């Protein structure tokens, strides 16, 4: 009540309470109480905001805030109790609609009440630490309406029932659901959780547990995963439409657990449709789905990875140990490449290029490629095939692709030095027979090997290329000098090979035909004239010759190996010869001779010699005759030595022995290097360090390492410690 006069203004002393007319407080409260009733009865239009605000203001100003506040609480409670009673009548969806409507009404009323009581909210409530008006209104709603015993259960059950119906395919009123859950959130996160979310998650877990059981028994893996994915997306969509976003991760966890985690192993190992079947049939979509779903579940992907890895290992192992496959090295390697391509594609398309899967694939390949000791040889043969004819006419980029794939396989090899040995052999044959499809491709591969293994690996290979070039120049020089003299003699073409660079085995000198000897000697003197202090030896097991031969039918030009030339030239002076006689005349080693005779007499279309008896095997007394009746539609007939084949068993053993021999000095060098740096070291550590140093070339055998150490001790590079027999010391 404001003063109208200028003086006589009373201010209450701080000790006494001078109560203004108590009836004033009652009167004012009555006005406000009435207003609240009107508001709840949807009769607010007739009220004056200013009047009500002023009255509330005055009550608080005159220290009647407490009365106002408690009156407010009582009045609201009364109305909410009425509402609560009216809600008891309705059930199910109608119940929700009623709740929703009454809630909207209550909020509107609360807003109006708060506006009127704003002064109390600002001043009285903070100082007395009471609950502000709006919050009070929410709390009363929660306690009186929502948590009344019947309403709480009914609300929860109705919500869950509607969700169940929607899960079973019915369309429900999502807007209504949205409003109700939003109401619960407004009442407090814990209300949302306790009254709804907790139960929702429980019920959902049961639902999905049952459903997953049903599906597992009736669907195959791919279908099941589709269904699981659908349900998962459905739940996410459900949350976005009418649940609080905080529920999303919780419900997805439930679905993941019930539909995926509980059945992981069953799904992966399902007969006829599980992971292995998907891999075999390249089912990219199904695999992608499995990856995405299992990704969500702890340990899900590791199971997929495990099963895939063991399957790849088994497949690979079968591949490399299958005796049929081993007959054709090029096919063998091609199948390996195909296998890698297949799984690269799967990992790229379905597994999002997941690095752990890539690693598993790599380790599997490394595992089974090295199960077959002939893998290095076969890979070299594959390269050889490609460089001889496989890459003929292939564009530059595609060549690179193939070579890169070869390098990829090369990296998996543990015995890279074995590969090196074979590669050298095959390269030498290619160079010497001029049978390489593309010089650029050869060089490109060497560069790749150099990048991978260092220059030592490739320095000798490069030496081979140099020799080829130099030889060209040398021959030109020879004919420039001596061209006139050689007139009648057969035309000579020579490759001069530096001994260290080429993988040649010393060949015993065979008897060259007299017609050849002359020009050969002329070349030898020419060469030694210009290169002092060198020694030349003819490699008769490696050359070729072109012979003009006259048969009954026609003349043919035969392209043969040097050995074959020696054999055929004999028939210029004899009609028939036994194997033994030929051997004596030519001094060609017997095994080579047999192969040579076979290729001359036993191959259809190339049988310039006739053999008696007609069998494929060569016995000492078999007789050979010049085959006058030989015909061929080609004028030029190639009877050269067979392409680099896979070695026979004895050759294989020989090569391996040589490799082992080569390894010894490498191991010794490594030991010395290590000991020089460390001075003293115990046995186990030496073995570890040596293995580490050499593993880019091969895996050293600990037994061999031990032997080498002992050899070094004998040669006084190292000594054993007198007290500890396992400790070694470097002797400077």
């Amino acid at each position: 009540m404001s003063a109208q006069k200028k003086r006589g203004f009373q201010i209450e002393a701080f000790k006494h309470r001078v109560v203004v007319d108590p009836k004033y407080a009652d009167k004012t409260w009555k006005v406000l109480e009435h207003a609240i009733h009107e508001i709840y009865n949807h009769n607010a239009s007739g009220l004056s905001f200013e009047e009500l605000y002023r009255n509330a203001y005055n009550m608080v100003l005159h220290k009647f805030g407490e009365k106002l506040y408690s009156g407010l609480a009582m009045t609201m409670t009364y109305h909410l109790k009425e509402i609560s009673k009216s809600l008891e009548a309705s059930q199910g969806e109608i119940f929700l609609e009623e709740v929703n409507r009454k809630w909207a009404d209550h909020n509107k009323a609360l807003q109006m009440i708060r506006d009127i009581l704003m002064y109390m909210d600002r001043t009285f409530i903070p100082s007395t630490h009471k609950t502000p008006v709006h919050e009070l209104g929410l709390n009363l709603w929660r306690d009186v309406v929502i948590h009344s015993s019947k309403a709480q259960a009914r609300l929860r059950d109705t919500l869950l029932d509607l969700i169940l119906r929607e899960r079973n395919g019915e369309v429900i009123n999502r807007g209504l659901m949205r409003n109700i859950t939003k109401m619960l959130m407004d009442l407090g996160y814990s209300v949302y959780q306790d009254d709804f979310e907790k139960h929702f998650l429980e019920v959902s877990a049961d639902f999905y547990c049952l459903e997953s059981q049903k599906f597992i028994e009736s669907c195959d893996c791919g279908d099941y995963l589709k269904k699981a994915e659908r349900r998962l997306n459905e739940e996410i969509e459900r949350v976005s439409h009418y649940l609080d976003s905080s529920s999303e991760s919780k419900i997805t966890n439930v679905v993941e657990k019930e539909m995926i985690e509980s059945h992981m192993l069953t799904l992966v190992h399902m007969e006829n449709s599980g992971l292995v079947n998907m891999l075999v049939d390249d089912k990219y979509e199904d695999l992608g789905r499995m990856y995405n779903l299992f990704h969500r579940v702890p340990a899900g992907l590791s199971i997929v990875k495990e099963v895939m890895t063991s399957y790849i290992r088994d497949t690979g192992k079968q591949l490399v140990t299958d005796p049929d496959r081993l007959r054709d090295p090029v096919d063998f390697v091609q199948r390996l490449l195909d296998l890698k391509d297949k799984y690269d594609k799967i990992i790229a398309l379905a597994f999002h290029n997941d690095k752990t899967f890539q690693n598993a694939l790599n380790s599997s390949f490394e595992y089974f490629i090295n199960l077959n000791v002939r893998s290095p040889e076969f890979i070299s043969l594959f390269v050889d095939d490609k460089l001889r004819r496989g890459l003929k006419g292939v564009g530059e980029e595609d060549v690179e692709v193939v070579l890169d794939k070869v390098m990829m396989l090369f990296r998996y090899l543990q015995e890279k030095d074995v590969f090196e040995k074979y590669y050298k052999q095959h390269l030498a044959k290619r160079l010497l027979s001029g049978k390489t499809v593309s010089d650029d491709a050869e060089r490109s591969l060497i560069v790749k090997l150099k990048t991978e293994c260092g220059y030592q690996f490739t320095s000798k290979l490069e030496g081979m290329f140099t020799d080829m070039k130099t030889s060209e120049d040398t021959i030109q020089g020879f004919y420039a000098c001596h061209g006139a003299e050689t007139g009648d003699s057969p035309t000579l073409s020579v490759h001069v090979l530096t001994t260290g660079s080429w993988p040649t085995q010393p060949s015993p000198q065979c008897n060259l035909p007299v017609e050849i000897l002359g020009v050969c000697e002329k070349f030898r003197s020419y060469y030694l004239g210009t290169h002092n202090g060198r020694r030349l030896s003819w490699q008769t097991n490696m050359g070729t010759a072109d012979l003009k031969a006259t048969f009954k039918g026609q003349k043919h030009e035969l392209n043969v190996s040097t050995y074959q030339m020696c054999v055929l030239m004999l028939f210029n002076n004899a009609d028939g010869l036994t194997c033994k006689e030929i051997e004596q005349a030519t001094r060609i080693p017997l095994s080579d001779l047999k192969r040579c005779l076979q290729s001359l007499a036993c191959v259809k279309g190339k049988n310039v010699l006739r053999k008696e008896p007609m069998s494929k095997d060569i016995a000492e007394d078999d007789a050979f005759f010049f085959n006058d009746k030989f015909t061929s539609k080609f004028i030029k007939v190639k009877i050269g030595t067979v392409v680099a084949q896979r070695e026979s068993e004895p050759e294989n053993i020989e090569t391996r022995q040589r490799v082992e021999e080569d390894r010894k000095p490498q191991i010794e060098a490594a030991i010395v290097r290590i000991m020089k740096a460390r001075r003293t070291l115990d046995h186990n550590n030496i073995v570890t360090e040596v293995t580490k140093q050499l593993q880019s070339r091969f895996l050293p055998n600990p037994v061999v390492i031990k032997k080498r150490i002992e050899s070094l001790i004998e040669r006084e590079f190292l000594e054993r410690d007198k007290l500890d027999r396992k400790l070694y010391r470097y002797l400077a």
Partner: protein
Amino acid sequence: MASSSKTITVVSSDGDEFEMTMKAAEQSKLITHMLDEFGVSDKVPLYNVNSETMAKVMEYCKKHADHEAAKEEDGGAAIGAGGEEELKKWDDEFLKVENGLLFNIILAANYLEIKSLLDSSCQAVADMIKGKTPEQIREIFNIKNDFTPEEEAKLRSENEWAFQED
């Protein structure tokens, strides 16, 4: 919101009507709230404030609204450096009124939620009290001394420090 050219009408407890611009009305949070909620159409009743006080409040609101407008216009150039000080001087003069009116101004400022006016007017009253003896204060505010002599003596001795002349 409406531009400052619009005006509203407020009605005092005596029934007198006062016109004020929107900008001036915005000085009072209560008026602003009522306008936001209920619109500008009707006259705004403010029955807790009498005409004499209302007139003073109107004057204050207008002055401060104009001051703000000037500040916004030139980015402060029109006001100049001494602008704020000038306003303060104006406020001080404005509040040099008789106590009764001053007290009513305080109540009106509280009711209408005009913070700056509430602060300055309370400060003015505080200045009146500062440095005065209890007797002087009683004189100014017409307060009855309701202590018994014993109570007063006790209070004085307990709060000895406050009565020391410095």
